[in-house]
C-alpha cells in the first residue's frame, strides 16, 4: 500500500551554527545570536541553552552571564544565514522529489513511495 510519509528537517541552533562555521573560536562556547538592533536572543548554542538563556529573551537580561560564563553574543547576519539556508536546501532537495521550505532552517519532505523505514540522522 502506498502511503504518504512526511519527514521534517530542522537545523540545530541554525544562526549560531552558521556563525560557528566561519569562526572556529566559537566552538564549544556559549553563544547567542541577537535580533535586529541586538534586542533579544534569536538563536542559542547548546552551551547557552545550558546556561538557562531562553528563546527571545531580551539581551539586557542575559548580560550578567557574560563575565562569569563567557557568554558570547553576536549581531545577526541574515545575508550569511540566507546563503547557508540555500545551501542546506539545495543539498536536501537531492534526497526527495518533493520538498517544502517551511522556514530558513526547517524543511518538510514528502514521500509518496511505499516506504517501510526512514532513518534520518
Amino acid at each position: 500500500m502506498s502511503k504518504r510519509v512526511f519527514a521534517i528537517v530542522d537545523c540545530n541552533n541554525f544562526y549560531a551554527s552558521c556563525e560557528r562555521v566561519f569562526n572556529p573560536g566559537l566552538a564549544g562556547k556559549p553563544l547567542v545570536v541577537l535580533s535586529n538592533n541586538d534586542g533579544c536572543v534569536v538563536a542559542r548554542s547548546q552551551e547557552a541553552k545550558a546556561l538557562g538563556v531562553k528563546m527571545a529573551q531580551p539581551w539586557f537580561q542575559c548580560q550578567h552571564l557574560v563575565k562569569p560564563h563567557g557568554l558570547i553574543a553576536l549581531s545577526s547576519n541574515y545575508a550569511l544565514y540566507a546563503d547557508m539556508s540555500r545551501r542546506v536546501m539545495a543539498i536536501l532537495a537531492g534526497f526527495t522529489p518533493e520538498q517544502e521550505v517551511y522556514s530558513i532552517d526547517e524543511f518538510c519532505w514528502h514521500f509518496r513511495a511505499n516506504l517501510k523505514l526512514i532513518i534520518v540522522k
Partner: protein
Amino acid sequence: MPSPSRGGRRPGAGRPAKEPTRVVRLPERLLPLVTQLATIKPGQGLPPGAWALDDHGQSMALPFFSTPVRAGFPSPAEDHQEDRLDLNSLLVRHPEATYYLRAKGDSMTGAGIQDGDLLMVDRAIEATPGMIVVAAVDNEFTVKLLETTPSGLCLAPANPSYSKIILKDAQELTLWGVVINVIHTVHPHG
C-alpha cells in the same frame, strides 16, 4: 444595518493573496524590458538587452575563445568563438559546499598563493596529504599544504622562511576545506 453596497468587506476584491508583492520603482526606459522579463516562460530565450542570471544570481556566462593565449605573442585573426563559458560551472564541483576565502600573508607563495588572493575552497572534498587545505589550528584559520609525518599529519608552508606546523598534544587540527582554485588578480585596478 448599513446597505450592503457601501463599505465593509467585499469578498473576492483586491489582489489574490497568493504571495506577498512589492512595489518597485525603475527607470522608464527599462520598463519594456522588465515587462518582457516578467512574462517570460521557462525554455524561452531572454529578450535582447537582458543577460543571464540563474535563480541565485550566481551564474554569468561569458564568451569563451579556445585558442591558448601565448604570453607576449598574441595570435591575431583568431576570432572563432566556441561557446559561452561560466566560470562557476567550470571550476566549482560542489556549489553547495564551495566558499571563497581571501588569503592573507606570504606563507604559501611557493604554491602560487599570494597575499590578497581569493581562494576557492571546497568543503565536500576529503582532504588527503598533498592537498592545500584550510585548517583551523588554535581557533585560527590557516592555509597550508597537508603532509604526513611519522607522528601524524602536519601543515607545511610553501615558503622557506616559515616553519611547519606540527601539532602538539593539546592542539587540535580541524580540516575545514580543500583549496581547489586560486584567483589572482593582475590588473592594477582589479
